[in-house]
């Protein structure tokens, strides 16, 4: 029992530190790549090629003055950034990043917790994230924040349905809700769910971008309409918490897509963890690439697309999968 607790604590610590470092360097990567997409250089000054920029930003944000506007609901105002940040962190608990390995005679699963309803847990926790956005928008006592919060809630509701339905096909084939089992169901290259569920993969990709509020679905924080959306009134570390949460959920979305559709940690020659990171980085690159390419949706287009295109397609995908499995 005691070795188990120690191993779990070590795993939590390692995943936590690596996750935070990845968030930090994701901001660097995004600025760098967006810069090069726009034929600029991106950050270059702090360290070679701006590599120390995330730390400089972090220190700057920590030392910034904290402004709280008048007439805000203090309790909810302080609670909201935490509600955005924590769900992003704890989703990592169920994502498997490697196969079972043996260290000093101990069998170690490279996943913090492999429990049999992993995917339901992920859905439950990602849905919690939207409370942070809505409460931030509501408690800030600012019309732009409120509009951002309302938009995010409407967007989440429309896309979460299609998101869940787009994964039903995967779950039907894998026959399990555990993420480790789903990875093990994709043991050969052509068994990856991206080949067995191409429509499901596309739907998932679109829905997850809407879910994590990235371009072209970044309506809750549409800069040119809503100042900054739900976090307009936040400053200092609370502002940083929103960003940590947002980039954290980007990583989560990529990790989940890797696990569900790209065969998780599996791949030849390289160690499993490296394969997992390579696939994850491919998704992160895709998000940034899409942001550099696509303009933002209009609000009515977003709703139409969510309910009239994605939802029927997701249902169709389930139908096709069911028919194929029956035959």
């Amino acid at each position, binding site marked *: 029992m005691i070795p188990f607790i120690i191993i779990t604590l070590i795993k939590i610590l390692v995943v936590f530190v690596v996750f935070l470092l990845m968030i930090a360097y994701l901001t660097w990567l995004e600025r760098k*790549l967006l*810069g*090069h*997409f*726009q*034929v*600029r*250089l991106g950050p*270059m000054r702090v360290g070679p090629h701006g590599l120390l920029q995330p730390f400089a930003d972090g220190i700057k944000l920590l030392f910034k003055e904290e402004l709280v506007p008048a007439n805000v609901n203090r309790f909810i105002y302080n609670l909201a950034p935490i509600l955005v940040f924590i769900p992003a962190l704890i989703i990592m608990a169920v994502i498997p990043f490697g196969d079972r390995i043996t260290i000093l005679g101990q069998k170690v699963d490279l996943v913090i917790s492999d429990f049999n309803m992993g995917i339901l847990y992920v859905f439950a926790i990602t849905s919690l994230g939207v409370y942070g956005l809505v409460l931030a928008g509501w408690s800030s006592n600012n019309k732009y924040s409120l509009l951002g919060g309302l938009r995010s809630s409407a967007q989440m509701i429309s896309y979460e349905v299609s998101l869940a339905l787009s994964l039903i096909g995967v779950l039907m084939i894998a026959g399990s809700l555990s993420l480790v089992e789903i990875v093990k169901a994709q043991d050969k290259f052509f068994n990856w769910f991206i080949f067995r569920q191409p429509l499901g993969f*596309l739907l998932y990709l679109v829905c997850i971008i809407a879910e994590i509020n990235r371009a072209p679905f970044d309506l809750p924080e549409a800069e040119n309409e809503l100042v900054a959306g739900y976090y307009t009134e936040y400053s200092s570390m609370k502002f940083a918490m929103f960003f940590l949460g947002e980039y954290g959920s980007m990583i989560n979305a990529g990790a989940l897509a890797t696990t569900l559709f790209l065969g998780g940690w599996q791949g030849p020659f390289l160690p499993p963890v490296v394969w997992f990171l390579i696939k994850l980085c491919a998704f992160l690159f895709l998000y940034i*690439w*899409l942001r*550099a*390419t*696509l303009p933002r949706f209009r609000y009515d287009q977003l709703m139409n*697309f969510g309910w009239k*295109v994605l939802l029927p397609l997701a249902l169709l995908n389930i139908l096709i999968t069911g028919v194929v499995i029956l035959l």
Partner: protein
Amino acid sequence: MFYVLKTIFWAIPRGLSVTFKYLLTKPITVRYPEKRLVLSDRYRGLHYLTRNEDGKEKCVCCGLCAAACPSGCIYMEPAENEFGERYAKVYEINELRCIFCGYCQEACPKEAIFLGKEYEFSNDRREKLIYNKEELLKNGQQM
């Protein structure tokens, strides 16, 4: 529905390929303090006053530059020297008001005032950006 499919399978990949092409091109950023752009010959920067071969100021304080100046940033007071020649006792250009149109240079009949290529003359004191005659002549020596 057809429109949506066309967007997904044709328009978006095309857009992505365009942006990817730009990802691979070399950035055009010039890293300013270390490297500078080559200025055009006709670049209009900080003004300078010139002297003739004898070392006298060319400016005779005719006031044409001040008359041509659209933003009214040139101020001058004339005087006569011991030979009865006009010269500018006071000649001030307010660089905060100046729009660097170059009309003063065009208007000058004596080729006394020019716009140079200096563009790094910011200051934290407003008074220091009103250049007087000595400073403008010194700018000319540096050219």
